[in-house]
Structure formats: structure tokens, C-alpha cells
């Protein structure tokens, strides 16, 4: 009874499968969600056939993929303030100094908070996030394990407590406990990296990589000063522990050599290296990289330097160590200090890299550019080489492989400026705008150097309209121009005869905080006063000049000079602001400055056109009071041109006569 039922069921089941197959064929392009039962049946079928199901591998998705796609849809708005400042409109920086201050304080605030949280974990036990976010909780920065054990040593190494780790190691040795090789490596690395000193308390050893760029200058300065203070001491803990080791392998030597080179004991490092060779231990790529970078300090002679570099490279090859990009970059860096032999050898080095299948990084190109580009040289190879580099790099997304990579763009732009290659400059700039390449422009200082040079090139070579277009795009959203940049722009306006834009530029100058730089202000005034313009332009110039006067008078940021006073007066006179011009004349007196002949002439002309002889006489009297040499000439001119009363004539004649003896 049961058997036939099962047969029927089986039959139907088979048919069902057949039906499914048919449907699947008909609708083959639809991806059906197979359910396990069908899978199983399929597997059963396949068991009869030799095939087997290959289960596809799980796909892993990047956490940021969606965000990156979204982010790529957001363009840059040159009129908006940078994103990082949008939270504080009141504090939005306007100058590079303010920018620096803002960024540094933002970062130091973050560091302070982190320090406080980490040093007082007991106040931060509440976990609000669900699911848990580990990095928001305080990190353990204090030592937990107290007993003498290898675990405790590891903990000290992980927390980068150099002296505590050394103490623990000594205690372990005294207790007769053997420390594993791995832990010893960690310990030696730690001691050598920090040169046997605890890393400074305020400088977080595990700095957040992704903190905004601002801590960098700070971090750098701190570290630079640390380097200056610290030098490799004879028989420090690293050497002591190293000498106590029963056997020394490559990692131990590597740590010591790198530490010695880092803390400026290259000769010691080199002798350590020879010691390593004598002990028949092979090196690693880091040892050679550091040694090559220290060659400059080991040899004085250019040829000797190169000899040592080639010797090291040959030894690398003998020991079957594959060089990496850093090896060749340090070779090129050494070649930069090898005098005239550097040029040809650098090209050979690059060919060697390519033969080994190592793609040059930006730092490689930067070294080559520096080798070939000499601003004063007669023949310019730099531009040709840059041309080649740019055509090779065009349209590629660059990644940073060497800390020196970030120097490339600034150097490339310098080459463009020196050789006045505008087209090349544009190409370099479009390379920075491609993809995420802008990240390789480096820290803010390097970035502003780059943009400063680019803007300089534009002002020098480009038409004023194009310059102004770039000006609006770059300033102030990307960088804050320095005084030189502003002077370049003013010169460019002058060259292309667009002085009518000066009032606008003056506003920008005030925005970027150069209104207290006398050379910029003088230049603006000079340009405004030099020629006559249409009445509307003169009117706007006069407003601008009054604004400048305000800077001098009210804010007292600058000292009046003869020239600036004269220029302001002339601009005001041309705009028929006689009353204000008279006030300016008063200023000459109060600041003991001497008005130029042009100013006085301009005054007389205005008086003449206004038909106010009394003013003209007063002017001559004022000139006489200032003991000007031009007084007699002025008096003569007044006498000749104006319709004067007897009394005025008498005064003028007297002044004219008074001037003559002094002539």
C-alpha cells in the first residue's frame, strides 16, 4: 500500500523537477532564487554525473564603497568655505595664519579630549552605542599586568613604554626566564625606534592616522625637535640587550641598524652591518634601504659615495634580497648629493627599476627633476623631463608609496615657473585634480607652495581674464595667497590694463589679511594714482582710497609714507573730492611728510577748474609753510592763471620772491 503511493509521489516529484527545468530554460535569463530542496535534487542528479557544484566564494564589500560613490558626486564649490570650517562660521579663517590656528586648535582639542578620556577611563564607562563602537571607549594606556612574565613584557611593548619594557626584560633575565625571539624583536624595535627614551607623554604614540591634516606640522615639529635632542648613545639598552642575546638574527640586526641610522650614528650602523656579514647573517631590505640613505654621511667624496651605493646594491643581489621602491628612491636621493655624476646615473637607476618591474613613485620623479633642473643653468632639461613624466602619469590615480611623494607637485610647478611653461603647468595641475591625487599635495604648507607657484605662473604667462578665472577658483577656497602672489596679480592687472578691477582686488586683499603689508598697499595706491581713468572708475578708486586711508588712520596698521599720502590725495582730487583732498593736505603737515610737485600741481588745476582762487592762495601758503622748493613755481603759476584780488597777489608775489633766494 505504501509502496505504490511512494512511486506515484516519486513520479510527480520527477515531473516537478522536469517542469522546473523547463521553466528555467524558458526564463533562463531570470535569476531564480533556488531553494535548498531543488539544490539538493540538482546535487543528486549531479552525483550521477561526474560534475560537482562549485559554491561561489563570498563577496566582500568595502565598508566605504557606498559612501565613496556618494562622495564622488559632490563637486567643489569655490565660493563656499571649506567643509572643515562650516561648523564655526564665526571662526572661519580668512588668512593662512588663522587657518593654521584654527586647524591646530581643532586638533589639539581632539587630542586633549582623547588624553582626558584615556587617562580617566573610570568616568567613561557608559556605553551608549548599540552595537558597540570600541574606538569611542577609553583605551587602556596604563599597565595592567604587574607580575614578572613575558605577557607583561609584551603589554609594555604594545603600550610603548620603553623603560618599563627594558626593566621587565632585565627582571625576566635575572629570574632566568627565557624570552621568546618574537618578543625580543618587538623589544629591540621599540628601543631602537624611540632611541631608548620613552616617547613624549603629550605626543600620542598611536596617533590617529586619519586625523585631519593639521596635526602634521605640529607633529613634525615635535618629532624634528626630538630627533635633534636624541642621538644614539654608546652602549644604550638596545646594544646591551643585543649583546646579551645568545643568537642574533636578521630582525635584531635590522632593528639596531635602523635605529642607529635614524639617530644619526651611520658609522656605527655600517660597522654593525659588517659585523652582521661576518656572522653570516643575511640582511633584509630595510637594512639596505637605511644604509643607502646614510651613505651621504659615510663618504664625503662623490665617487666614493656612489661606489658604496653600488657595493650595497651588489650585496643585496648576492643575498637574494629584492629591492623595493624605497631602495631606489634612497639611491636617487643619494645621487642628488653626488654632484655632476648624478644625472646620468639617475637615469640608469630608473631603467634598473623598470627592469625589475618596480613602478617609479612620485618621489622618484621628484628626485630626477631636482637632479636635472637647475634654475640658473643655460640649458633646461627639467621641462623636457617633466613633460615626459606628465605624459606618463596623465590620467592615473596616484598612491603615496614614499613620504617624499608629496614633494613632487610643488617641485614640478617650480620647474614650470622657472621655465615659464604654461601648458606644462596646466597639465601638472590637471594631474592633481584627477581622482584622489589631490591628497598627494601634502601638508598645507606644501599645498600652498604649490598653489602659490601655479598662480605665479598664471599671472606671468596667462591673459588677465584667465588669471581672474583661476583667481576666483583658487582663492580663498584652496589657498590663501601670500604677498608675492598679490603683487603678481596686481602686476598682471597692470600689464593687461584692467586697473578698473583694483577696488575689488583691494577688498580681497583685506579679506586675506594683507591690508597691513605696506608693499601691497603702496602698490595698489601707486597703480590707482598713476593714470587718469573714466569718471566712474575714478569714483570707485576714490572710495577705495578712502578705505585705504581708513586703514592708516583708524586701524593704524601702517605708517603713512610720502608716496602713499600723495597717491591718495591725487586719487581724491581726480574724483573731485576736493574737501577730502584738503584734509589729506592737513595730514601731510601732521605727519611731517612732503607732498610731491604733482600733488600740488593737481591741486592748482582743481582750484582753477573750480574757480576758487582763495584756495589756490592757501595752497601756496601751505606749500611755503612746508618749505617746499616748488613754492615759487606754484606762486608764479597761480599769479599767471588765476583771477586774483590785490591782496592775494601781494601775498603770492611775496612768496614767489621768498622762494627765489633759496633756489
Amino acid at each position, binding site marked *: *500500500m*505504501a509502496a*505504490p*503511493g*511512494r512511486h*506515484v*509521489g516519486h513520479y*510527480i516529484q520527477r*515531473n*516537478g523537477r*522536469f*517542469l*522546473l527545468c*523547463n*521553466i528555467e530554460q*524558458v526564463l533562463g535569463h531570470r*535569476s531564480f532564487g*533556488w*531553494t*535548498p530542496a*531543488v539544490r*539538493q535534487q540538482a546535487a543528486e542528479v549531479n552525483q550521477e554525473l561526474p560534475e560537482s557544484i562549485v*559554491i561561489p566564494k563570498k*563577496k566582500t*564589500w*568595502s*565598508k*566605504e*564603497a*557606498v*559612501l*565613496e560613490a556618494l*562622495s564622488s558626486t*559632490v563637486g567643489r564649490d569655490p565660493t563656499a568655505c*571649506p*567643509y*572643515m570650517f562650516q561648523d564655526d562660521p564665526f571662526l572661519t579663517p580668512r588668512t593662512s595664519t588663522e587657518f593654521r590656528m584654527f586647524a591646530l586648535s581643532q586638533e589639539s582639542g581632539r587630542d586633549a579630549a582623547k588624553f582626558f578620556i584615556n587617562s580617566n577611563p573610570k568616568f567613561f564607562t557608559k556605553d551608549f552605542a548599540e*552595537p558597540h*563602537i*570600541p*574606538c*569611542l571607549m577609553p583605551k587602556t594606556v596604563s599597565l595592567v599586568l604587574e607580575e614578572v612574565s613575558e605577557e607583561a613584557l609584551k603589554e609594555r611593548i604594545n603600550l610603548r613604554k620603553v623603560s618599563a619594557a627594558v626593566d621587565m626584560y632585565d627582571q625576566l633575565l635575572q629570574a632566568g626566564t627565557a624570552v621568546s625571539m618574537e618578543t625580543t*624583536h*618587538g623589544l629591540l*624595535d621599540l628601543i631602537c*625606534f624611540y632611541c631608548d627614551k620613552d616617547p613624549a607623554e603629550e605626543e600620542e604614540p598611536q596617533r*590617529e*592616522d586619519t*586625523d*585631519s*591634516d593639521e*596635526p*602634521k606640522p605640529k607633529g613634525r615639529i615635535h618629532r624634528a625637535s626630538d630627533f635633534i635632542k636624541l642621538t644614539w648613545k654608546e652602549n644604550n639598552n638596545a646594544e646591551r640587550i643585543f649583546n646579551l642575546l645568545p643568537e642574533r638574527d636578521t630582525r635584531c640586526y635590522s632593528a639596531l641598524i635602523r635605529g642607529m641610522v635614524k639617530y644619526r650614528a651611520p658609522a656605527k650602523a655600517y660597522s654593525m652591518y659588517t659585523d652582521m656579514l661576518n656572522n653570516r647573517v643575511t640582511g633584509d*631590505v630595510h637594512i639596505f634601504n637605511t644604509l643607502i640613505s646614510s651613505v651621504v654621511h659615510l663618504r664625503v667624496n662623490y665617487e666614493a659615495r656612489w661606489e658604496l651605493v653600488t657595493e650595497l646594491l651588489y650585496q643585496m643581489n648576492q643575498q637574494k634580497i629584492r629591492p623595493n621602491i624605497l631602495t631606489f628612491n634612497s639611491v636617487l636621493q643619494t645621487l642628488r648629493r653626488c654632484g655632476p655624476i648624478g644625472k646620468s646615473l639617475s637615469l640608469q637607476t630608473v631603467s634598473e627599476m623598470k627592469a625589475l618591474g618596480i613602478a617609479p613613485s612620485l618621489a622618484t620623479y621628484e628626485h630626477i627633476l631636482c637632479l636635472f633642473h637647475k634654475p640658473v643653468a643655460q640649458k633646461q632639461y627639467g621641462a623636457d623631463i617633466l613633460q615626459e613624466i606628465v605624459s606618463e602619469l596623465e590620467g592615473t590615480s596616484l*598612491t*603615496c*608609496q614614499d613620504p617624499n611623494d*608629496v614633494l613632487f607637485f610643488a617641485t614640478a610647478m617650480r620647474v614650470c615657473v622657472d621655465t615659464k611653461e604654461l601648458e606644462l603647468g596646466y597639465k601638472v595641475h590637471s594631474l592633481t585634480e584627477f581622482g584622489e591625487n589631490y*591628497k598627494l*599635495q601634502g601638508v598645507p604648507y606644501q599645498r600652498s607652495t604649490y598653489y602659490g607657484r601655479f598662480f605665479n605662473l598664471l599671472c606671468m604667462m596667462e591673459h588677465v581674464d584667465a588669471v581672474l578665472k583661476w583667481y576666483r577658483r583658487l582663492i580663498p577656497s584652496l589657498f590663501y595667497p601670500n604677498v608675492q602672489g598679490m603683487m603678481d596679480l596686481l602686476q598682471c592687472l597692470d600689464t593687461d590694463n584692467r586697473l578698473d578691477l583694483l577696488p575689488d582686488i583691494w577688498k580681497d586683499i583685506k579679506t586675506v589679511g594683507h591690508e597691513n603689508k605696506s608693499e601691497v598697499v603702496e602698490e595698489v595706491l601707486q597703480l590707482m594714482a598713476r593714470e587718469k581713468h573714466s569718471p566712474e572708475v575714478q569714483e570707485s578708486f576714490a572710495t577705495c582710497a578712502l578705505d585705504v586711508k581708513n586703514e592708516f588712520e583708524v586701524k593704524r596698521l601702517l605708517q603713512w609714507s610720502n608716496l602713499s599720502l600723495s597717491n591718495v590725495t591725487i586719487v581724491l582730487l581726480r574724483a573731485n573730492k576736493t574737501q577730502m583732498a584738503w584734509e589729506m593736505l592737513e595730514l601731510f603737515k601732521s605727519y611731517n611728510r612732503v607732498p610731491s610737485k604733482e600733488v600740488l600741481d593737481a591741486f592748482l588745476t582743481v582750484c582753477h577748474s573750480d574757480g576758487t582762487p582763495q584756495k589756490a592762495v592757501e595752497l601756496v601758503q601751505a606749500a611755503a609753510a612746508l618749505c617746499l622748493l616748488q613754492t615759487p613755481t606754484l606762486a608764479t603759476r597761480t599769479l599767471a592763471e588765476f583771477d586774483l584780488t590785490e591782496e592775494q597777489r601781494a601775498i603770492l608775489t611775496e612768496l614767489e620772491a621768498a622762494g627765489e633766494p633759496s633756489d
Partner: protein
Amino acid sequence: MYRFLSRTVCAARNSSVIVYESCVLPAKCEKAMAKQTEEPVVLMAEDGSTTQQQTDVKTEPVVEKPTEAAIDAAKSGKQHLLDLLVAMKVEVTSKKKFKGTTIKQNYESIKHPESKSEAMESTISMFQKATEAASPPSETLEPDLVAAASAAAATLPDSNRAQSVLLRQLRERKAITEAQKKGDMSKLGEIIADMKVGRQYSRQKPSASSQITFDDDERGYTRDRGITGELVGVRRRRNFFLAKRLNIFSPTTEDDAPTLWDMEFANNLSQVTNQAPRNGFEEMIQWTKEGKMWQYPVDNEAGLEEEASVSFHEHIFLEKHLEEGFPHQGPVRHFMELVVAGLSRNPYLTVQQKKGHISWFRDYFQQKEEVLKEANADLN
């Protein structure tokens, strides 16, 4: 027969349902054979109520429509249903199906001529159960499972108690599922379900026009695929970057653990290239990298960290766990297959929980082995 015909309709709509059904089938026959007088009645009563509920709260309208069509068909007769089938454009296969079902029907009518109408009804209700199984778990158990459980329990002497024990275990699993489901994704699920219902609602006409909706579905599907394809492209680009970055950060590939020097070098590089975020998304990327933010849900596995290392096939192909400890045929096997089929489609349990669930049944049936042997003696 109706069940099967409507199932073919279903297959065109939703392959998972038919699959479910096809694994249910052999058991159906056995059940029909070993039919107890009271059991189906109980089942039907329960089915009737659940069906009523289901048609109201159904979250998978794709299945819902043919269900109604099938009910109509059942009422007006076989001819009506055939017409419908023709309209569904599955003639090629429906012929063969029809043969199969005819045989079955014949068989049923021969064996139980008196309970034919009853069987018909029960088959209809079985279909309802099948559709129900495709819908997300509700508070009641799938009637199919209940039926299978009772079939398995029927082989034991104290069938009522055994059935309740089995059902309790199933309900427990359901409770766990519900709890884990509610944890995070219930809202999202609701939203999606709502969207689907709204979209389908206007087209809901139980007639031959279902062909059109079918085509619509297809188009919708390809559109979906287009979007995924786009994402794949994004992903591929990302991969390219990743490959390059790895090149930087592990300069010493021969070393398993990065040394302090490597870490500091990588640190240095990232500090040098680090730029302030230029927009909100970049800031969010930065936070994600720092771990300050929950990751943006790039797939449907957000929040399933513990399952991240488990491949999908471990979730889906659970039959291998039935290889040992269970009989290879019979009602127990059938019941377990249903359990496994349900588990394989349950996204809210971890693989460990699924295995535990299966092993509970393994223990249970092993404890009852003696009784089973006695009961199975005449079956084999």
C-alpha cells in the same frame, strides 16, 4: 490536482514555493494514505482561520494573486483552471504536470472515494499553507509543518503528546527568530513589504491579466540587476585602489606581523597624504575608517558580524545535517526535510542555532527510536 496545477502557476511566479511543494509531495501521498479520520478535519479548521488571516496580512503579493485565482478555479471547476493555465503560458510543462496529477487524483479517488471532496479541500488548503510558508513567519506555525509534525507524531503511540512536543520545539524556534528579527531589521522589512504591497495592489485582478504582471515583474527584475551591476562596477574600482594600497602598507610581505617600523612608516605615509575632508561623505568615510561610525549598509548583512565568516551555503544546504541520526525515509524524514527547508530560508538564525535546532530533533527522535521502529515496521 488543483494543488499541483496551482503550483505550476506558482512556479512561474515564485520558484521557491514550488520547490517547497515538491519536497512536500511524497509526504502528501503518504499522509493521504495513512489518513486518520479526525486529523485532516482539525487541520482544515486551523487552515481555514490561518488562510483568512494570511490573505489579509500577506506580505508577498506575488504569490497571493495566483492563490486567489486558484481558489476561484477550484470553485468553478477544472475547465476554468485549465483556461487559466493556458493564459499563464506554461502549456509546455502543464501537460506533463497534468498527467502526473491525474494519476494522483485517480489514485486518491480509488483509494478513498468517500473522502474525495475532503481530500480536495485539504489539497487546496495545502496550497494555502505553501503560500503561507513563503510569507514571513507569523505567530502561528506553518500548517504544512504542523501537518508533517502530526504525521510524524502519528507513528508514535501517544500521538497527541508527541505532536505537541514537536510543535513546541518549532514554536520555540519561531520565537527566537522573531526576537532576532525584531532586533534590528523588522522596520526595514516592514517598509520593504509595504512598498511591495503598494506596488502590486493596483494590478490585483484575479484574471488572465496576470500574464502582464508577470512581464512587469520580469522587467522590474532586470532593472534591479542593472543597479546591482552598477554597484559591482563601483566595487571593482574600489578593489583596484585596495590592491595598490596593500602594496604600500605591507612592504615586508615575508613578515607575518607588521613591525613597529612598518606601522610607523604607514602612519607617516597616511599623515603626509591626509587631507581635510572636502564634504560630508568624506568625513563619514573617515569616521568609518576610524571605526567611529557604524558602517554604511553596503549589503544585507549589516550587523551580522558573527555570521560574517559563514558562507551562504552553510545556511542554505542543511540537508547534510540529516545524513546521520535520521531515517532516510518515512514521516520523520519528511518532517525533518520540512524543518530544514524552513530553516534554510530563515535569515534570522545563526548557523549554530540552526544546527542546534536540528540536533534537538535528532536527540528527540533517537530517544523515541524504539517506538518508531515498532510503528515503522508495517510502513516498511
